[in-house]
């Protein structure tokens, strides 16, 4: 008997809310909402955030990525993307990571191991101008371009305009 009352109450509630929806919402409303959800979901991956390759997971971390003293920056020469709307391993929105880069190694002070760091420049926007950092561990003169951080590495990108630099951990240097 109680179950019957419950079902009647449920039926009444659903009927009431359906009538309310019919009065207040147009028939196209559902289609509009569904469309927004579908388009929104599809657009999330193409939001204008350029992504360099992800840092290797499981690396013990220490320090502030917006500070020039951060361990990954031991061979960087440029503006830190982490101060320019990006992170230490990804470009700010609207900037494109250079596929060609110069690579160095830095010692992680937590585990004492050396890691291979890819210093991908972010390109296609005016120079960021924040948090300039110039540390030159392993840097070679410009007459040896593959190992020089003084040159503009915005090569292979749509624009050669330099914006800022990232420091992506690629792997362990076990050489």
């Amino acid at each position: 008997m109680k179950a019957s009352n419950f079902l009647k109450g449920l039926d009444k509630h659903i009927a009431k809310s359906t009538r309310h929806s019919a009065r207040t919402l147009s028939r196209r409303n559902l289609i509009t909402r569904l469309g927004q959800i579908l388009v929104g979901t599809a657009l999330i991956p193409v939001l204008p955030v350029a992504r360099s390759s992800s840092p290797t997971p499981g690396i013990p971390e220490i320090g502030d990525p917006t500070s020039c003293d951060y361990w990954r920056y031991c061979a960087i020469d440029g503006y830190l993307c982490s101060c320019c709307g990006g992170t230490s391993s990804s470009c700010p929105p609207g900037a494109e990571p250079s596929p060609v880069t110069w690579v160095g190694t830095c010692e992680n002070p937590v585990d004492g191991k050396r890691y291979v760091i890819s210093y991908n420049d972010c390109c296609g926007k005016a120079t960021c101008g924040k948090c300039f950092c110039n540390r030159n561990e392993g840097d070679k003169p410009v007459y040896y371009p593959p190992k020089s951080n003084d040159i503009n590495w915005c090569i292979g990108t749509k624009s050669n305009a330099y914006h800022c630099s990232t420091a992506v951990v690629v792997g362990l240097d076990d050489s």
Partner: protein
Amino acid sequence: MKFVRVRLLASILFGCLLSATTNASPKSDYMIHCMGCHDLSGQGIPPEVPAFDATLGNIVGKPGGRAYLIQVPGASQSPLDDERLAKVLTWLLRQFVGDDLPADFQDISTLEVNQFRPVTLTDPGLIRAKLLSD
């Protein structure tokens, strides 16, 4: 006694040198000296930076192909010594070309690097095209 000490010191130094060279990981050498242009995946940015794919398997099987791989500027002018260059070339061929290598493929040797490296290629692109068309 002094002679024994000198010999002992020499053997220790030689041992250190040997371990320093044999412990070098070709994968690390690839990451540090090659990946900047050729990418971690070996796909490069064709046509300026050639991909390490089946094309390389084709080249390495041709007469002069192995010498060409040693003499391209990125390899011959790298700061790696001959032994490490031989190892990293072999590593990348096996890693990225794999099954597309000739069936009788043998590792690039230090001796080959030593022999072919001093020759400077004035137009690597032309030699590459010629190797591929032969």
